[in-house]
């Protein structure tokens, strides 16, 4: 039963859940290879490979997460079933998370083998992608759940992502905004402040997902306006 339900939920999560994370990583890798092939520096290629993990993958995952939360044709039916709807959504997001984790680990290993690794090593290397991905996906899921609009949620995610890219120095310079800065590793490095930033993002991400779960548990937030 377990495997069958996961296979069903993987299908419901949609092809994007399986394709978006590898597409994000391949995109970054392709640009890095292109730069190296056209006499770009090794540092540039390394930074791009790191950005693939820390910036592009979280964006792709967040976009898929908000789609998973908003796109459900049979919501009322799900709410009438003994399996909690929250568990169903959780499984779909779990599929996305598992695919992302496997690919990011493989990407990290491949980059290290190729001699292009930069950023922290060991277990800490997980936080390069896990922390920003959790935060941005949690933010996307919450906005999508509250607004019930994929357009609004994707706009909010894009705004945050671009805003942090454009005003990176403001985020790094402000003690208040620094824990929310998604691109610390690729923009600042893994020196002082890095660990606090990662912990801040992880804690924030968990909080956002918890609030999302609380909202998803309230059926009146999920159903269309009552025709009573």
């Amino acid at each position, binding site marked *: *039963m377990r495997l*069958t*339900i996961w296979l*069903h939920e993987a*299908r*419901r999560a949609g092809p994007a859940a399986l394709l978006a994370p590898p597409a994000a990583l391949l995109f970054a890798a392709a640009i890095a290879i292109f730069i190296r092939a056209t006499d770009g520096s090794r540092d540039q290629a390394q930074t791009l490979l790191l950005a693939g993990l820390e910036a592009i993958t979280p964006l792709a995952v967040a976009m898929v997460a908000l789609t998973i939360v908003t796109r*459900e*044709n*049979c*919501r*009322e*039916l*799900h*709410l*009438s*079933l*003994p*399996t909690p709807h929250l568990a*169903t959504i959780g499984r779909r997001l779990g599929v996305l998370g598992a695919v992302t984790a496997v690919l990011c680990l493989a990407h990290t290993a491949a980059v290290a083998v190729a001699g292009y690794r930069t950023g922290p090593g060991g277990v800490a290397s997980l936080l390069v992608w896990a922390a920003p991905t959790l935060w941005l996906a949690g933010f996307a899921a919450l906005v999508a759940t509250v607004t019930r609009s994929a357009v609004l949620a994707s706009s909010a995610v894009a705004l945050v992502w671009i805003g942090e890219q454009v005003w990176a120095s403001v985020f790094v310079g402000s003690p208040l905004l620094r824990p929310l800065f998604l691109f610390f590793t690729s923009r600042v490095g893994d020196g002082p402040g890095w660990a606090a930033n990662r912990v801040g993002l992880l804690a924030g991400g968990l909080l956002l997902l918890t609030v999302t779960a609380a909202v998803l548990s309230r*059926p*009146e937030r999920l*159903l269309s306006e*009552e*025709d*009573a």
Partner: protein
Amino acid sequence: MHIEIADLRRRFGRVTALDGVDLTVTGGMFGLLGTNGAGKTTLMRILAGVLPATSGRVIAGGHDLSTRAGRVAVQRRLGYLPQDLGLYPDLTPTEFLDYVGLLKGLDDRAARRRQAGELLDLVGLSDVAGRKLKGFSGGMRRRVGIAQALLGDPALLIVDEPTVGLDPEERIRFRTLLSSLADARTVLLSTHIVEDVAQTCRQTAVLAAGRVLFTGAVTDLTARAEGVTWEIVTPGPPPTDGVVVSAIARADGTHYRVVSPRPPAPDAVLVTPSLEEGYVALMRSSVPTPVG
């Protein structure tokens, strides 16, 4: 499944959808009638454990729906067909039933597949069991909906406006199917189509503005229009006194059936009422004063 509803209330902000509903539903087919906005869907959703009530009590099959354990216990014995069942266009009916069966807790794969096959056969879709749902007509989708509702052989079947948008043939087919299912379980049919209740239910309730206006036998609701249902044959305009329920043009003029406490015309003749006229008489709150 026996359902006992007491002083049930549901508010959405400032809007009161249900305002102190008291109702008892026993086995067989039970029709819930009411205009759009009467509170039917809200009541169905509360009974299905989809929405919580603001206050009041619902006991279904001995389980209190105000508790999570009670809701889950009822949902394990429930089949629910919501008014808008979206379905998943990329799935076949077999795959859809397999998925819903899993979520209903039917863990045995072989039993689940067998049941899906039997239900698709019951609703007349076994020949398209391998076709994607995206190509299905409204009636076929509704039949997939009833098949998923019947997974797990539920003791309570709740169907919300199941015949809206169906062509006459599909509607009759669907009504017959629902009637046959009511032999072994409680079927709660919510509709604003009086004909659906007239053809299938023995017991009914009428909801208006979140309150129960009537509950009892269908024949008793019909009796509400006795002595106030008239027929007039005239080539002229419809009568202005009372509610015109039907107007059929024939060679000798238009035959109007009118619900009115007084004769709407000097030559009006009292006739045997239908359920629709009983419903109209109730909704008009006309006092059924016998004339004659």
